[in-house]
């Protein structure tokens, strides 16, 4: 279970998070929706301290972090227990697909090279890229890179995987393959997923919980049926009306 308590964050004069309170149950798939600039990516990045919130608390099971008094040790620990999938993939450019997955296993999990390789192959196959192990990032398509990114995150067996707009940089034809992989792991792997996305179709089909954010606050949250099917808030209604019509993909 991940809990946010009163998370605040400003960039200069611009207050992006205005006191976020929310919790995400273990093993659930939570989708955060919202217009650009609503603070959803910042919230996600504040979990693993790629963005340090100004104040508030982040609680991951037994790890209580008061953001203002956070230590290096705590940041390191929460990073070891989470993994992230990035909008721009961020595969290590100097490593092959297989080495990208092995990297964390060898350096962070300290398992032997041979064992890491075996494990990496399994995860690469899981995302349907068993034959691409020796390819470098620039030799793979965007969709393939993102699937390696997902395998890299999965292989570490984290408590939580954070997805930061994983399909936003992909062209429409490649979005499907990535969403399919995400859907598959949501069903097969018992790990918490927090997904920031604009894919409302994905939210409807896969999410257990939907959070709608706007202007740095949570406007509405609940099951996909509640939030997407029968939104109560005027802002949510407005957003969905504009969005659903042209950004829905079949997965």
């Amino acid at each position: 279970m991940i809990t946010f308590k009163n998370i605040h964050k400003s960039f200069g004069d611009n207050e992006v998070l205005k006191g976020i309170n929310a919790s995400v149950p273990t093993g659930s798939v939570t989708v955060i929706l919202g217009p650009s600039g609503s603070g959803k990516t910042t919230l996600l990045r504040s979990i693993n301290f790629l963005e340090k919130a100004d104040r508030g608390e982040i609680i991951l099971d037994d790890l209580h972090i008061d953001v203002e008094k956070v230590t290096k040790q705590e940041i390191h620990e929460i990073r070891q227990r989470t993994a992230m999938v990035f909008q721009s993939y961020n595969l290590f450019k100097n490593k092959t697909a297989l080495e990208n997955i092995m990297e964390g296993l060898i350096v962070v999990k300290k398992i032997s090279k041979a064992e890491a390789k075996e494990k990496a192959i399994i995860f690469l196959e899981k995302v349907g890229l068993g034959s691409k192990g020796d390819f470098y990032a620039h030799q793979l398509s965007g969709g393939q890179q993102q699937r390696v990114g997902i395998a890299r995150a999965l292989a570490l067996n984290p408590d939580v995987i954070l997805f930061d707009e994983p399909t936003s940089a992909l062209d429409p034809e490649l979005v499907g393959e990535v969403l399919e992989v995400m859907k598959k792991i949501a069903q097969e792997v018992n790990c918490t997923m927090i997904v920031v996305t604009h894919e409302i179709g994905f939210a409807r089909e896969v999410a257990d919980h939907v959070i709608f954010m706007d202007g740095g606050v949570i406007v509405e949250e609940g099951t996909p049926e509640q939030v997407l099917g029968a939104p109560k808030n005027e802002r949510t209604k407005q957003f969905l009306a504009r969005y659903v019509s042209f950004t829905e993909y079949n997965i």
Partner: protein
Amino acid sequence: MNSIIDPYFLMEIFLKLLGYIPMTLGLAITSMVLASILGLFMLIIRMKKIPVLSKLAELYVLFGRALPTMIILYIVFFALPIALMIFAEKTGQKIEINQVPAVVFAVIGLTIHTGAYLTEVFRAAVQSVDKGQMEAAYSIGMTWWQGFYRIIFRQASVFAMPLMANQFLNLIKSTSIAFMITVMELFGAANVICADNNRYLEVYIVVAFIYWGMSVLFEKLFLVAEHKLAVFKKGSNL
């Protein structure tokens, strides 16, 4: 002796000057290695924003690049011994400053000069790496050092190679200034031969040819190193 260029004399001094190549290259390579280490230290100090030290690093880069190499060599050669002597007197230790060969001062001076440039080269190289790479390293639980060494450093080194080659070729030529503080290297030896024989044209043609040869050799070597390091970029247009 009436011809403008005497081919036998040309050959003779060429063979004589070959013997000074080890000194010139020794100066250049030693200074380059030390300057790379120094530059890397400065880079890390500045990246990690260590208080006080990072300000000092900035100051060093400023001065190291602002002063002519010759002045740095003079300061090191003339001022450092005095400073050491005062230090020795104050602490009562015995330092035999006269026994330190001039070549040591030359290496120190050239290192200071080159290190300042390399610090900037390394900074540019690190900045060329997308910041998402470090974020990815953090996200899988790596520490700053692990991410820096295993990811950033490897990618940045490809970018740095051509710039380092530049710097090294410059350094080979800068070693000729070491003659000013009595180090007998290629250019120094050439000057002595000039004075002994009163023939300038041949000597400078030969010495220019040798510098050219060394530069070409190292240009190629750096290119090979760059390709070796860039193995992960094969087929991409970078």
